[in-house]
């Protein structure tokens, strides 16, 4: 029994030692990037496909876990009588189910490769809906703050050890108050209604981002 414990401890020490001696550890890697987003299948009545732009930084915590911290500015039409603007600021955790593709340890020339991930996170959302044609007494609009959660799948296409293109598909559910528009097609009258309380309204977001690793904040490589 003592021998078994001894062997287990020895294996544990060896593993710990192997971890310590790694020259390349991705933890602490900071990336900076830009992104463009398409908003699809919006729950809002008559809302059409939206498009957006934003930025993000990415901070990696381990071989298998990365995080995205993003800002998006998305606009979309509600038929031809109103338009909607969304600002998203939030974060997502990226989990790499296949993380044995260790590009940090490559000895030969780098070859582009895909690295798929599962993603989940949270964001704060500010939405504003404005009428296309303002009434004579001034612009007509409604706005709200809400919170949202999102989850999805994606993949990096790593074109160099430092540069990657990432494609993500995720569903974002907005929690809390929401605004509804009511439009009378015969009279052209438009009105906004704010509904308080929990409601699950969401949309599919497809995001393409370009990222470059700019710094390693901790876990410096050994020489």
């Amino acid at each position, binding site marked *: 029994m003592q021998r078994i414990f001894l062997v287990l401890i020895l294996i544990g020490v060896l593993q710990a030692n192997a971890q310590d001696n790694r020259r390349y550890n991705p933890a602490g890697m900071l990336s900076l990037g*830009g*992104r*463009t987003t398409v908003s699809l299948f919006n729950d809002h009545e008559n809302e059409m496909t939206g*498009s*957006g*732009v*934003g930025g993000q930084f990415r901070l990696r915590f381990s071989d298998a876990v990365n995080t995205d911290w993003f800002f998006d*500015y*998305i*606009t*979309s*039409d509600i038929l*031809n009588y109103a*338009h909607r*603007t969304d600002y998203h600021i939030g974060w997502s955790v990226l989990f790499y189910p296949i993380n044995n593709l260790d590009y940090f340890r490559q000895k030969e020339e780098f070859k582009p490769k895909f690295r798929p991930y599962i993603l989940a996170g949270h964001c704060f959302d500010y939405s504003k809906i*404005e009428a*296309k*044609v*303002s009434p004579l007494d001034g612009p007509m609009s409604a706005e709200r703050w809400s919170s949202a959660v999102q989850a999805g799948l994606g993949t990096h296409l790593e*074109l*160099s050890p*430092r*540069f990657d*293109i990432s494609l993500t598909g995720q569903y974002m559910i907005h929690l809390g108050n929401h605004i509804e528009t009511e439009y009378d097609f015969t009279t052209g009258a438009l009105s906004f209604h704010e509904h308080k309380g929990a409601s699950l309204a969401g949309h599919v977001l497809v995001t*393409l981002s*370009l990222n*470059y690793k700019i710094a390693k904040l901790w876990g410096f490589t050994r020489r």
Partner: protein
Amino acid sequence: MGIHQKIIGLFLLASTLVYSQEKPWSHWSIQSSYFQPSLLRASATIAPTRFYSQQATVALINGFVEYVLENRISVRGEGNIMAPNGKLLYTNSPEKFPRNFTSIYAGFGYHLGKRNWKLDLHAEPGIAISEMAQQPFLIVPVAYQWSISPSYMLKGGTSFYFSKYCHFFAEINYSNGWIRKTPLTSVSIAQYGISAGLGFHVLTKKN
């Protein structure tokens, strides 16, 4: 001259030949490629651009700055401004085309090819800032409103680096976006354009 002296003389001659072969070759291999990491390049040119949804062609003034991060990767920022009175062809009513238009993009480039002739690919998210007519049928004179719209640009082109400080470039681009703040349906700013000219570059770090 004895046989030993002749052999030593031949060795000496051969060694100088080897040296003279290596030196120019290594010099050539370094100097032959101006496109290297830390290269900073910039240019400005006029870019004829077709807004095909609006059936209008305009002259945009295009400028860019690009920094080469790695052998194949660069980061790039660029802007387009509609030249004053730059509408070359105009077939639509004012409420369907911006009176002023500016776009700003920032993204990355991927460069293929060896030495001084490169094939360049760019993807750049950005914004379009435009001034559109509001309520054109109700108020005279027409009121205009500025708005900022998300946009993106895809660009392909080629560059030839022919000197230490200059290169030629030719590019074709496609960009898209929607101006939502309009009294009617949103206005598409889908466009394709070309730009070409003389660019300037400098190596910011010495090898």
